[in-house]
């Protein structure tokens, strides 16, 4: 089943805003893209393919997303860096509740101070979006399955 142009346009907007908030902030607004009851998993493709449950980030509610954001900003010691997303090849299907189940490819390029850009992470989003009472699309589930199983040092920010 393919998406109508208007549906695709709406999804592209959501993903553009998602990238925007993670790359250019404010990071504190990013959790608002998720439903209060949500599941966010950052999971190595190796675990995903083998049916192993371990994720390197696991947030089971918007609250946990907010805690992660706050920790990134207030508690985690890390070098300054820039991140840049490319989210492409969005494909999906309508769900019964007027939302969508979506698959998209992503890559995140990281720039550490005085370093050349490098690929921090690459993989696929396995998402379920639902509609808020106001009709806005929100993430109910987001599984970031990353092919780049060997992480270059540290992943500080959500992807």
């Amino acid at each position, binding site marked *: 089943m393919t998406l109508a142009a208007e549906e695709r346009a709406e999804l592209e907007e959501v993903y553009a805003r998602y990238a925007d908030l993670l790359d250019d902030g404010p990071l504190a607004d990013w959790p608002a893209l998720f439903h209060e009851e949500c599941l966010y998993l950052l999971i*190595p493709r190796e675990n995903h393919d083998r049916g*192993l449950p371990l*994720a*390197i980030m696991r947030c089971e509610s918007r609250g946990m997303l907010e805690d992660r954001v706050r920790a990134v900003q207030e508690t*985690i*010691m890390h*070098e300054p860096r820039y991140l840049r997303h490319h989210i492409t090849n969005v494909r999906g299907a309508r769900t019964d509740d007027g939302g969508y189940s979506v698959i998209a490819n992503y890559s995140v390029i990281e720039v550490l101070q005085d370093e050349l850009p490098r690929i921090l992470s690459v993989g696929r989003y396995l998402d379920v979006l639902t509609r808020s009472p106001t009709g806005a699309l929100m993430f109910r589930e987001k599984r970031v399955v990353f092919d780049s199983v060997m992480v270059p*040092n*540290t992943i*500080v920010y959500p992807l």
Partner: protein
Amino acid sequence: MDVDGATWSWPDGGVTEVPYAIYTDPGIFAREMERIFSGPSWAYVGLEAEIPQPGDYLVTRIGVRSVVIARDEEGAIHGFANRCAHRGVKVCRQRHGNARFFVCPYHQWSYDARGRLRGVPFINGVRQQGGMPEGFAREDHNLPPLDIATRGGVIFASFSATAPRLEDYLGDTNLSYFDRVFDGRQLKVLGYSRQRIPGNWKLMFENIKDPYHASLLHVFLVTFGLFRADQPAQVRMDPSGAHGLLISRRGEQGATADTGEMSSMKEDFSLADARLLDPVKEFPDDATVVMQTIWPNLIVQQQSNTLALRQIQPLDPGRFELHWTFFGYGDDDDAMTLRRLRQANLMSSAGLVSADDSEVIKLAQDGVAQYPDDVGVMLMGGRGTDDEDHMVTETAIRAFYAHYRRVMGL
């Protein structure tokens, strides 16, 4: 500098001064691979639970060397170098699998679970032509075997045939804490995390053997009272100093007489979703954190209810990989499994706590690499290398380097 050329020697000051050259010099690294990782040591290579069935195998590294750990048809575990006896090709390309024989892709020489050469295609030639010459014997071309020792479901291997019994190697104290986690229950692998850290592999051991940093670097730990300098703690070593234990018990949160010096503490930070931290007691003693370091490549982590083995794989003087295996027990109920998975948010390549460590290790490597002739000082808690009953000490690091100097002849 040339460590082999005897133009270099360890500076005075015993183990309170550590020369930065050991973090960057290729000659020292080459000797480490030889004397430490290929010497009479027991390197962690995996869990029995990862290769439960006959024919199951896994591939890992000891130092820079790829090795295969395989379970034979009788269920016995063996290990051998992952490098064909013919012309050196990596025989095994998968991280894990099940195989009766290990067949090199190049000319299909095949080896059994012991790494013994079993098949050589065209060994007698084709149509009376070619084949192996007089005197060629398969048994002369087995793969270099590894000694294997297992305990509590954990597999160790050694390139040397002269390593002491694993139990003697660990020593009583470390053995007892090892048995505390690996108590005979079935282990259940929950998943893996892998990261490549731009620092020398010894910086990882320094980090885990260093209780001093925990209450200062790890704001998250301090803020939520998971680990603090003012909490009851012990530092324990084996007689050699090679292995170490960091044992602590969660205490009160919030400010106390001693938190003044933990300037990093965020008193106003409370979790929006408390499920991230809902530890339950699961071990007989009161310890809430036990970090065990086992020479030359293993960290056993029990941080509240998140259990993991961290395997250190050096790549070169300036880089190592950390391979995490998260596990629980076969008898965990779903709630406990979920708890372990949630607490894993603190410890991994993206851990709320461990991220501090991988980031600071990079900063350490960046710093020392610029000053090859300088030294670091390890004076906290004095100059000794003995056990201590508090966290304000670098004794375990000093003990580690005392052992390191003996093994390396430095």
